[in-house]
Structures are given as structure tokens and as C-alpha cells.
């Protein structure tokens, strides 16, 4: 039976989510073979996200049935204040199964999604927002030029927004192509094709440029747009066909796939590219402040402010808690 009054009923405000919510999907079933560097990659991913995102955000990590070591690591990261929301699934729901949950549940108006093997560079968010907010009918924006057209030339939305004359071409610098190809371990012929084929480029009235095409590896989007494509089919662990349904629905609704001409994110894959290693090392050795909310300065009446200042002094906590419990006993048992 209820004894006393639930303190949560007092008129304290609940946490208000940030404008931007970023989600990361983790699946590291063991730390052998393909996943032997899984924890290092995951750490680099999370720390690059925190070190190089220059706006407040809420981070949701969805663990899709990883091994005990990874779950423990994520719990430690959350306890240390790096992860706002941690969803731990006992089993692997598949990528689209997790996306169904993430995209439906995140309360933030702008949602960013990323696989957990993506490295973020400083400036990625602003460059992505410039495109998301600078073009009409934007669906998803990836912070890396899109070389692979997941819609296989069948996308229709871009043709509804841009005339052929408005679509220019863009030849990325060779290092951009090389970095991308190393990230996906592209065979020589594919690398050669990416080096020789220009990418379709559009720009807005303010001169912001965007490559046509985006990837479900990493993107940002408006929540209201993402909610329109749910639920996605979810029967496979990692399926290009099921991933493609997401992109197809975005396009069918008339929303654009766009990406930044500059690679603000890099696909690390399952090992860290030696050429990326210095950037990763720099992030891991940077002192980053945890994104926990600043402790509120005591406000209100003079006695409340005085009490707040006193409570900040560590030795007093024990006495305040004892007083709290004593007052509860006095007033709850009647």
C-alpha cells in the first residue's frame, strides 16, 4: 500500500530533449575474428561523435544483442554521462528492426542516425544542417559524398525538384575517393570507377552545395519525415534489400537524398585505417567534457537559495538525506 506522498509528484520539470537526437546502432556479438577490434572502433565512434559535434544533442545507443563485454562498456559509458538513452536488446532485431524502434522513439525534432563504425569529423553537423535546412524537400542528408546510388538510378524525387540544368557535376579530390574506397575495402575496378565518374551536384540560392544521393550508414533527417516511412520490414540481420526499402520510401514520398561534398564522416569498418589512425588517436586523447546538463544554480526564495548552496557542500549531504528521511517518516505514517 502507498505510504506517504510520491516525491516525483512535486512540481519539478521533466527533462526536455534537445533539438537534435543522435542514434547509434551497435551489434558486436563477440570480440573475435571480424569483430576483434570492435570495442576500439566503438570507442572511437562514440568519442568522435562527442568531440566533434558542436551543438547540444541527446545520444541514444541501441545495442542489438551484443556480447557481455560490449554491453558492460556501454553501461560504463552511460554511467559516465556519455549516453543519454541506452536500449539493450537481448537479441538481434536486425538493422531495420532497430531502426523501426529508434526512428519511432527518438523525441527530438531532428534525428541523426549512424552505424557504430562511423568516425565523425569536426563540422559534420553544421555541414549537414546547412543542407537539411537549406534545401526544400530534403529527406536524408549524409555527411560524406555519396558514391553508391542505393536507388540504382530509379530515384524520382530529385527530378521533381531540380531541372537537368540545375544538376552539375562534381569530381571529388582523389584522396576523398581513396579514403571512401579504403573504408569499404572496394575492389580495384570499383575504385577506378569512382575515381573517373563525377558525382551529380546541386546548389541552393545561398551557394550551399550538395551531392545527390545519401547513405543509410549515416544521415540526419527531420523526425516527421522519418516517421512517414515506418515501419520497415525487419526479417534479416543486415540486408541491403531491407535497407533499400527505407531509401525507396523516402524517395517515393518525394523527399531528396543529399550528401555533403566533403567527407565529414568516415566509415571505419572493422579495423582502423592507418591513415585515419592519427585522427582517431587525437580524439581518444582529447579531454572532452561529458554532455550532462549543467547543475542548476539554486533558485527561488532566499531560504531555498541558501539551502541549495549548503547542499552543494559534500559533508552536508548525509545530514540532509537523514533529515529528508526523518521528515518522510513523520508525515508519511499518518
Amino acid at each position, binding site marked *: *500500500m502507498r505510504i506517504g506522498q510520491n516525491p516525483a509528484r512535486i512540481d*519539478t520539470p521533466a*527533462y526536455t530533449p534537445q533539438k537534435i537526437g543522435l542514434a547509434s546502432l551497435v*551489434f558486436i556479438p563477440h570480440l573475435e575474428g571480424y569483430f576483434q577490434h570492435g570495442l576500439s572502433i566503438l570507442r572511437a565512434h562514440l568519442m568522435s561523435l562527442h568531440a566533434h559535434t558542436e551543438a547540444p544533442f541527446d545520444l541514444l545507443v541501441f545495442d542489438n544483442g551484443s556480447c557481455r563485454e560490449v554491453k558492460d562498456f556501454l553501461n560504463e559509458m552511460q554511467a559516465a554521462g556519455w549516453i543519454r538513452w541506452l*536500449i539493450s536488446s537481448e537479441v*538481434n532485431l536486425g538493422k531495420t528492426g532497430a531502426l523501426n*524502434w529508434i526512428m519511432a522513439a527518438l523525441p527530438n525534432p531532428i534525428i541523426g542516425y549512424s552505424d557504430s563504425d562511423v568516425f565523425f569529423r569536426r563540422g559534420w553537423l553544421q555541414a549537414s544542417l546547412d543542407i537539411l535546412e537549406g534545401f526544400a524537400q530534403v529527406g536524408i542528408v549524409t555527411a560524406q559524398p555519396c558514391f553508391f546510388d542505393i536507388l540504382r538510378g530509379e530515384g524520382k524525387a530529385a527530378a521533381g525538384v531540380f531541372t537537368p540544368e540545375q544538376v552539375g557535376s562534381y569530381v571529388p579530390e582523389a584522396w576523398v575517393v581513396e579514403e571512401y574506397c579504403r573504408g569499404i575495402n572496394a575492389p580495384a575496378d570499383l575504385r577506378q570507377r569512382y575515381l573517373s565518374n563525377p558525382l551529380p551536384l546541386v546548389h541552393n540560392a545561398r551557394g550551399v552545395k550538395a551531392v545527390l544521393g545519401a547513405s543509410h550508414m549515416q544521415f540526419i533527417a527531420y523526425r516527421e519525415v522519418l516517421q512517414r516511412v515506418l515501419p520497415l520490414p525487419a526479417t534479416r540481420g543486415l540486408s541491403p534489400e531491407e535497407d533499400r526499402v527505407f531509401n525507396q520510401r523516402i524517395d517515393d514520398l518525394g523527399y531528396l537524398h543529399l550528401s555533403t561534398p566533403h567527407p565529414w564522416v568516415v566509415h571505419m569498418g*572493422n579495423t582502423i585505417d592507418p591513415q585515419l589512425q592519427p585522427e582517431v588517436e587525437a580524439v581518444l586523447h582529447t579531454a572532452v567534457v561529458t554532455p550532462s546538463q549543467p547543475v542548476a544554480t539554486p533558485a527561488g526564495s532566499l531560504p531555498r537559495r541558501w539551502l541549495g548552496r549548503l547542499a552543494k557542500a559534500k559533508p552536508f549531504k548525509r545530514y540532509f538525506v537523514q533529515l529528508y528521511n526523518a521528515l518522510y517518516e513523520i508525515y508519511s*505514517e499518518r
Partner: protein
Amino acid sequence: MRVGQNPAKFVHQVARPERITVAILNYIPFLSGFYAEMLDVLRTCLDSVRQDAGLPFDLLVFDNGSCAEVQDYLLSEQRAGHIQYLFLSEKNLGKGGAWNIILSGAPGEIIAYADNDVLFYPGWLSESVRLLETFPRVGMVTSRPFITKREYLTHTLAWAQNNPEVQVEEGKFIPWETYYEFARSLGQEPEVIRQDFEKDTCFRLTYRGVSAIAGASHWQFVAYKSVLAEFLPFDMNRPMGQVKQLDERMNQAGYLRLMLTEPRVMNMSNTLRGIHRPETPPAPRISRRLWDWAPLRAALLNLHDAIFRLYFDR
């Protein structure tokens, strides 16, 4: 860089979530005062939910910023395979904020929601789903009968009274023991409960051989996820008090709100008194009159709330 092929690409079939997700919302910011017994209450809740629910389900626990001891317990429960989905929030999103995430994200077609202080009896889920699937256009089913606000029953009663297939009866269909145990669990005094019982009546609806009591409540209910989606999002501004909107809006939208005729769940509140051990009256206090002197009482309760905010409100 990628070396080799990601084995996840060869996972041809992933686990399919059960049709029903049972979602428990938990918030225990510390283990003293009001929350002194709450970890035991939570254990009792989670133990009972798994015992003979009558239908298979996945268990989701949403922890809304509890203390480390409670989160450790939940993590150990997940490791033991008792929780399929564990959602740990660093901050208290309030009940409305947590609902926005649970009710939109939970993978089941049917969501059975409960606060963390609900005790479940065998068959609670199968009986509730039977009502959900027998009556048409059901919004929510609560798994025990009790007296609810009549203003939130208007659509349910209007449907029943206008449907020749439904037998509508008004009367005392909640036995005294069932009525008393629930009212007492909310901390009401026995004499007040007796007086209320004398005057309260409820409506029993029988449709296609299945009976239900009109009414439902937001502390425990079973509903279709697609129906709940119509009422999202909820206001997130305050930790509690927003979720009554569900009762009101579901009635306004013309959905039925129903309860089982027999108690299949119980409200424990913040102690196990009356559940696992007999209720004992508090020891008499000599200085009762002093503590109840209005200005002192107001000042001390104010102090009590202020300390909670200073240390425990995340």
C-alpha cells in the same frame, strides 16, 4: 576500413518480436524515504509478470533515471534472460516522455503497459487480450475492476446502451474485498473506503458471452499499439500527471475503455504491506499535535521537497 565480410550480412533470419510487448516503467531515484521498499516492489512486479501470464510476450523495462543500485538490478535481470529489452535513460523524462518512447518504439502489435508497482496474477494477460479481441474498437483494457471516473466512460456507455448485442447492468459488481484492497493500496483510510463502497456502483457490459466492467486506467492497461499511436505524443513538461490525458482522450475519440471483472493485477504502491506481510498500524506519536500545526507542517514539507529536488531529481 573493412577487412573481410560482416557476418551480420549472413544472418538470414533475426529474432521476431513477440506479438505482445509487456512494458514496465520504472523510476526509483534512491532507496530511502518514499522509495525505501521500492526495489522489493520492483522485484515483486517483475517476478509476478512472468508467472503464468497466459500468453507469450517480450518484456521491456524502461528505467527513467533510477539510482545505480536499481539499474544494476535491472542489468542483472537482463543478463539472466528475464528482460528482452532494457531501456536506461540517464534523465527522468517524466511519465509522458517515457510513454512517448515506449508506446511508439515497443515492437509488439499489442502493448501491455504497467507502472513498476503492479502485482500480476496468473492469467492476467490472456484474460485482458480476450476482452481486447472480443469487444469492438477497444482502446484500453485494465486487468482489474475498480471505480473510475464517470466522465471518462461516456463513450463506452453510449456504445453499450445503443448496441442491442450488449447487456448493460448497473450495480455493485465489485466485491467488498476487491474494492477494499485496491482503495487501501492507495493509502485511503478504512472508514472512508467503507463510505465510498456504500454509494459506488459500476457498469457491467456483457457482449458475445464475455463480461467487462466499464472503465480503465493509465497505471496498467493492454492496448493495440496502432490505437495508442493516435494519442502520441504526450506532454513531457512534468514528471507526472500528464498521462491522465490518455483516459480522457481515448474516451473522446470513441474507443471503449474496459476492465476485467475479476482482479488479475493489484497495485502495490511503494510498500509490500498488505501484499507479502500484514498491514500494521503506525506507532502512536506523542508529539502529533506539534507536527500537525499547519505552519510547521507546511515549512517542513517544503523542506522535504526541496531536499528531494537538490539531490535526487535527475
